[in-house]
């Protein structure tokens, strides 16, 4: 009985991890890009931003 519970638990955890991974990877590939951080109308293009 406990072997079945352990197998089911492992499969559920594995399934959740697999689903979250696949959804995350697909989102990274197909998600809309944020607006470009560089605004060419500003006097200088910044190297980056803090915070």
């Amino acid at each position, binding site marked *: 009985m406990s072997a079945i519970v352990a197998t089911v638990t492992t499969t559920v955890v594995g*399934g959740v991890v697999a689903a979250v991974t696949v959804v*995350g990877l697909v989102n990274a590939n197909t998600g809309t*890009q944020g607006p470009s*951080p*560089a605004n060419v109308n500003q006097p200088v293009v910044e*190297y980056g931003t803090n915070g």
Partner: protein
Amino acid sequence: MRAWAVPAWSLLLAVLLLGPALAPGFVLAHDMVWVPDLALRADALGTGSGLPRAVPSDAVVAVLDEVVPGMLLQKLVLLASLVVGGIGAARLAPPGSLVGALAAVTLWQWNPLVAERLGLGHWPVLLGYAALPWLVGAARRWRTEGRMPMVLPLLVVVASLSASAGLATAAVLLVLATRRDPAQVARVAAVAVLANAPWLVAGLLHAGAALSDPAGAAVFALADEGSLPGPLAALGLGGAWNSQVLPGSRTGPAAWVSTGLVVLVVAAGWRGWWRRLGAREAGGLLVLWLLGWGTAVLTWAAPDAVGAVAAAVPGAGVVRDGARVLVLCAPLLVGAAAQGVTDVRARVAGSWPGPVPPPARVVLAGVLVVWPVTLMPDVAWGLGGTPGGGLRAVSYPASYEQAREAVAAAGPGDVLVLPLSSFRAPAWNGGRTVLDPVGRYLGRDHVASDELVVSGAVVAGEDPRARQARTALAGADPESRAAALAELGIGVVVRDRTAPGGDDAGAVEVAGRRLLAADDLVVTEVAGARERPAPRGWVVAMAVAWGGWLLLLTAPLLRAGRRLRAARHR
């Protein structure tokens, strides 16, 4: 199975991470500027006027792209810096544990440090990072067998293509390859010095300009990631200063979970890892970890003190980018984590009621190997989930080639790139921020701004010639500006019309012959400029430095040749 599973997994992760960056074209991201044919010029050799920031990396690229096209070379470097490092990381795992090896590969390649350095374009740092696990093994062999492995000089040279990477590599060598034998310490120190000689000597020649603006220390310090404080982020190799390259997953709860899991899995493997490596090597890796984490946290906790040191000690500014030093933490972190994964898997199998069924075994192994990807999936496909736009391959406009030809046809003198600002966000690069690529593309020594602007704060540049050019441009009329620039040895002015402040209405005019007026680039020849050869002493010093560097690189070949000759005589 391990023989092919590790390289295959490493390659899969690398392709998944780089994605569109592997398409035809150049990847231009922040400090990463590759061009079709980089010229081997004074700046690359360390005798230019500016601080030698790209010595020796530019010289190596300039030579190699004579054999391999620049575009292909960049792909190879990016791919190799991930795959070679990943395969090497598997050697940090317990022998015989495939799951441990695969977990080591994942953790080595799929972490905030790799993602953020890719986004910042710090490819020499990534190359040094890729060489690290191999260097750990080679240093061990040198220490224990008393004979320098043939591959070690190549590893050290490849891992020292920039100042910060070279310092990290030297630290690894000095900690792991030395023993209580002054001769061995001297040999190790000599290798470290020779590998770093080009930038070390060039830095000494520029010592007068090597003091950094103290403002840079606060700007480039180890940073918090969302609600995760910098010192905790650093435990999982995160904490880069630039929020443009920070994956969204690192600003939310996933970063806390990821850091917690890293700490747990390292704790789980700690005792087994220490026992397996022994006190000498594990202790050495602990020292490196403390050095990396401690330095990074110092930049976070006391940026003013770091800034004061960088402003007073020539070259000390190299440590102001706190998170970059975290490469030193990776061998311990990944080795202990791989041990932890192996031990956890064994414990689960031991406590399983009866034999573990194959599906459960596969699922458990999969979770232990894949979790770093699960918690940071948004760096996939060219850092798609970073606000800075990630990595994409693009083509240079045709005008860049026209400008290169125009500059080649111009009279003597260096190129001045206008407007005098360091970074660009050209539309043809998708608006992504990149260090102005114009100067490198043109194939001549160039003067450009090295001032950095971060969140509105200006970090002063160090190149005295850029400051002189700014003064020259403040002249009353185009003719006087041109005369002042010619005095500085500027023979060509190239202006980017598309950059902020570079349009015709806002540009500072310089008198001269117009060689090109494309939609984006304008090339003007300045009359009266003369070549400004580097001081003879500089040339001699750099020749000695490069000679030592080449000697180290060719040492294994020379040794192999001697052995071959000796074998023939026998």
